[in-house]
């Protein structure tokens, strides 16, 4: 059920500045909207309010020094981004990673993905005016953050992965906690389904709202849950397997409705799939070292051009690394998924009502530092 079709009278529009400080933009994002009453005629996103030039930092600093930057890209799913970074450098420098480290990485990334999706879930429902699910989601997320903190030492910007391995090993406490967490999380997911997914108000607000066709997704290069909500079966973990993901048995949820609800459902299902991966990872977790025996003291990837894509919580994150053989990168390009996903918004929200447009914006799962980099 979407709003009626309107005819635009020239000169009757007004400009509405959504942002840079606006509750719906989850950060400092600005969307200049030309409105006719409640309808959006044209929208233009203005980025760059927290642009920090991570790419230049990546070129100016030695490879290990860039590590903390990557977790600052996306404060909700930092693990995935660091994973991409270490994988890219390892690919370039040809560093072997011990199996245990790979498994722990996968578990950590998936835990972080669940945490990220949980927070997105809460914030999304809050965008739609429901406050309480956010609090429940944060409670569940706290468990994950506690586990991650016990291992990595920080709660949000884990600088945990190292080239070739990990910062430190996990202990039995973590394994037990993670095992105990999985059934609890499954129960919570059921609760969310009853509280939010089934709710008629919620369904009415999302179903058939914010359609993004598969073709549009392709043209804009949307990835991650946004693309999967539009019927595109694309997940870097499956399509271009990296790390130990081929060892795991998991599904990629795909919905063909192309609306906000589909994107919502994709993420909710993804949490379940992540739990499956964590479960398998904990079962399969081998013993062994977490750092390779021989690791170059100074990382100097050979000259060349490397690309590494990983599936983060928001989509396909890519690093293009141009190395000139020194200890600094020659070019360090970060391809952030939300950047492409957000680009869809300008075109997709035309002709929508502002409420629906902002609901759709929420369903894109924006993390502004990651767009602005």
């Amino acid at each position: 059920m979407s709003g009626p079709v309107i005819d635009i009278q020239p000169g009757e529009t007004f400009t509405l500045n959504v942002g840079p400080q606006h509750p719906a933009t989850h950060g400092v994002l600005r969307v200049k909207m030309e409105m006719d009453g409640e309808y959006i005629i044209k929208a233009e996103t203005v980025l760059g309010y927290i642009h920090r030039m991570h790419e230049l930092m990546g070129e100016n600093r030695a490879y290990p020094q860039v590590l903390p930057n990557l977790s600052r890209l996306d404060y909700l799913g930092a693990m995935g981004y660091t994973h991409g970074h270490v994988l890219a450098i390892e690919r370039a420098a040809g560093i072997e990673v011990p199996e245990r480290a790979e498994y722990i990485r996968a578990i950590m990334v998936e835990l972080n993905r669940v945490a990220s999706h949980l927070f997105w879930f809460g914030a999304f429902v809050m965008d739609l005016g429901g406050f309480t699910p956010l609090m429940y989601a944060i409670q569940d997320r706290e468990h994950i953050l506690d586990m991650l903190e016990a291992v990595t030492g920080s709660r949000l910007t884990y600088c945990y992965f190292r080239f070739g391995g990990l910062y430190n090993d996990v202990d039995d406490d973590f394994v037990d906690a993670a095992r105990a967490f999985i059934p609890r999380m499954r129960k919570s997911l059921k609760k969310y389904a009853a509280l939010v997914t089934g709710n008629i108000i919620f369904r009415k607000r999302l179903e058939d709202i914010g359609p993004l066709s598969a073709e549009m997704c392709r043209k804009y290069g949307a990835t991650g849950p946004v693309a999967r909500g539009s019927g595109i079966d694309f997940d870097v973990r499956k399509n271009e397997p990296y790390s130990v993901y081929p060892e795991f048995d998991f599904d990629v949820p795909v919905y063909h409705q192309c609306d906000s609800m589909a994107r919502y459902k994709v993420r909710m299902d993804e949490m379940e799939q992540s739990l499956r991966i964590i479960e398998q990872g904990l079962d399969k977790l081998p013993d062994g070292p977490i750092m390779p025996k021989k690791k170059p003291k100074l990382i100097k990837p050979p000259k060349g051009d490397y690309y590494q894509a990983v599936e983060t919580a928001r989509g396909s994150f890519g690093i293009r690394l141009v190395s000139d053989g020194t200890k600094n990168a020659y070019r360090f390009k970060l391809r952030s998924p939300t950047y492409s996903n957000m680009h869809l918004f300008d075109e997709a929200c035309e002709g929508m009502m502002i409420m629906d447009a902002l609901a759709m914006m929420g369903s894109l799962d924006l993390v502004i530092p990651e767009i602005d980099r």
Partner: protein
Amino acid sequence: MGAYFSEIFLGLYSLAVGLSITFKEFFKPVVTVPYPFKTLKMCDRYRGHIELIENENGEPKCVACMMCQRGCPSGCISITTKTETYEVEVKGEMKTKKKKILTGYDLNFTTCSLCGQCIENCKFGAIEFSKEYNLASTRKEDFHFNLLNRLKERNS
């Protein structure tokens, strides 16, 4: 017509389900910690700002090799040293040796990103993460830590 009513009823039912969930939660105990009155214990690996570690003599273990300063991505560590000559007896002979003495170890916490590169670079185990998290101030200068002074304060 049937769809009209079934939508109403299913909608009402879904609302009732949601209400029952929040009602159940209403009687569950609170999960938050009343912060100023109760605090959580930081886990062992908690990464606060860095602190110097002392040796048996109460002196900092740091030998001023500058690895931490060089490894820091944000350049927030500044070490000052002086060179001291001293004599040691090696095989019966007295030899003069030079030694770097740490005279100042300043951490600019405003730019620190808590990545832990300094600790990883330290070959001597001379720095550690503190467990302090109650860091709040209205002035920037409060976050320019003089770690040597802090070490002395801890000792006294």
